[in-house]
């Protein structure tokens, strides 16, 4: 056995023994009521954050941080990576091209008409949902108006963020209907009146459930071993991918449905019928 491996193993064993001793001998601190924790996670009544004088939920701060991160990344890529793109792509170029192509193809497959705008929208929405859900993993801390430390969760686990994206997706679908079919397109979109609510609350429910499960797990110290790896990391990764796919797929499907051009009804005149009969 190598010396470095021996040192690493002994240090790890020592840390684990120290942790076990701590768990056994230290008295647990008083934690708040689980009901209160859950209520706070859903309603954010007590953890408002000051945003240029406006009291906002932590989810909005997360959204702003996600936007800042993504925009900075996009600017860097635009300045340094895109001008160096080659005909034979490298790994990073391939990743970017795959992402753009995935959303573009999804838009083209589900909506054969007027899909240029749809591709751009679902690319933005998909990136936003995916990156903002992964922000949960970092667990950024912020100070609330009350002066308490607040962990920033996923922006879409905030009902306002979820409603905003759901309603915007519905409006985008409606715009596709108007662009192709005019007033009939509006009618077709309004027929699916439950869509904004279902989309918003699907996002909200899915991301909030992840948050609540995580809160629940971290609330009890006994559940803090091994389980957070599955709940915190795997579930977050999984529902980041799943929710991204679900929203962009639904948006592009409904967009394709309402933006399909009307088939003109052929009026069968008597003369036409007679001519057909004569043949």
């Amino acid at each position, binding site marked *: 056995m190598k010396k470095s491996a021996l040192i690493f193993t002994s240090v790890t064993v020592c840390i684990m023994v120290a942790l076990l001793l701590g768990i056994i001998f230290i008295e647990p601190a008083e934690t708040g009521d689980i009901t209160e924790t859950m209520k706070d996670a859903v309603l954010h009544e007590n953890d408002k954050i000051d945003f240029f004088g406006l009291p906002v939920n932590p989810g909005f701060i997360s959204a702003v941080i996600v936007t800042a991160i993504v925009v900075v990344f996009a600017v860097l890529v635009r300045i340094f990576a895109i001008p160096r793109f080659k*005909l034979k792509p490298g790994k990073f170029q391939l990743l970017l091209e795959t992402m753009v192509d995935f959303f573009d193809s999804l838009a083209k497959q589900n909506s054969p008409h007027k899909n240029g705008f749809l591709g751009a929208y679902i690319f933005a929405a998909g990136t936003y949902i995916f990156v903002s859900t992964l922000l949960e993993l970092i667990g950024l801390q912020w100070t609330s108006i009350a002066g308490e430390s607040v962990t920033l969760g996923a922006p879409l686990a905030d009902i306002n963020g979820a409603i905003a994206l759901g309603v915007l997706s519905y409006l985008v679908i409606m715009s596709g209907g108007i662009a192709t079919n005019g007033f009939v397109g509006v009618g077709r979109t309004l027929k699916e009146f439950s869509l904004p609510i279902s989309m918003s609350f699907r996002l909200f429910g899915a991301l909030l459930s992840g948050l609540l499960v995580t809160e629940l797990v971290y609330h009890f110290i006994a559940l803090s071993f091994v389980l957070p790896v599955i709940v915190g990391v795997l579930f977050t990764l999984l529902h980041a991918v799943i929710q991204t796919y679900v929203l962009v797929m639904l948006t592009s499907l409904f967009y394709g449905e309402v933006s399909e051009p009307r088939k003109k009804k052929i009026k069968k005149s008597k003369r036409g019928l007679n001519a057909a009969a004569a043949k």
Partner: protein
Amino acid sequence: MPLNIDWRQILLHLFNFCILALALYFLLYKPVKNFMEKRKAHYEEEAEKSAKLKSEAEEMKKEYAEKLNNADAEIEAKRSEALHELHVYREKLVGEAETEAGQIVEKAKKDASRERKKIIDGAGKEIADMVGAATEKLVLGSTSDAYDAFLNAAEKSIEKEENEIK
């Protein structure tokens, strides 16, 4: 509002998302898509070019195979054509040579007859001169000899008489 729904925050979320969407569209989506389309167009053009070249090459191959098949016949045709041309050329050369030879002979004959005439004319005159000279010589030669003989005899008789006197 129930569930802490706040219209102002919804609008803030919408505003935030619009910024993100616009930035992503102009900074990532559009440039990457443009690049992919350009590359697609480039490869389509290349494929079109190579297809055209391939068809041209196949046509040339077919043409060459056909040429190769007909090469023996073509070589034979070329050979007979060359022989024919050679024959024609030889005939032409021989004809020209014969004409030239005839001309030369004709010219030689003419020259010879002219020379003969010239010689004959020259010879007559010369003979006449020779005859004249001979006659003159003959005539003049015989007179002087007799005279000389007379003088000699006279001299000899004088000398004899003088000796006898002595």
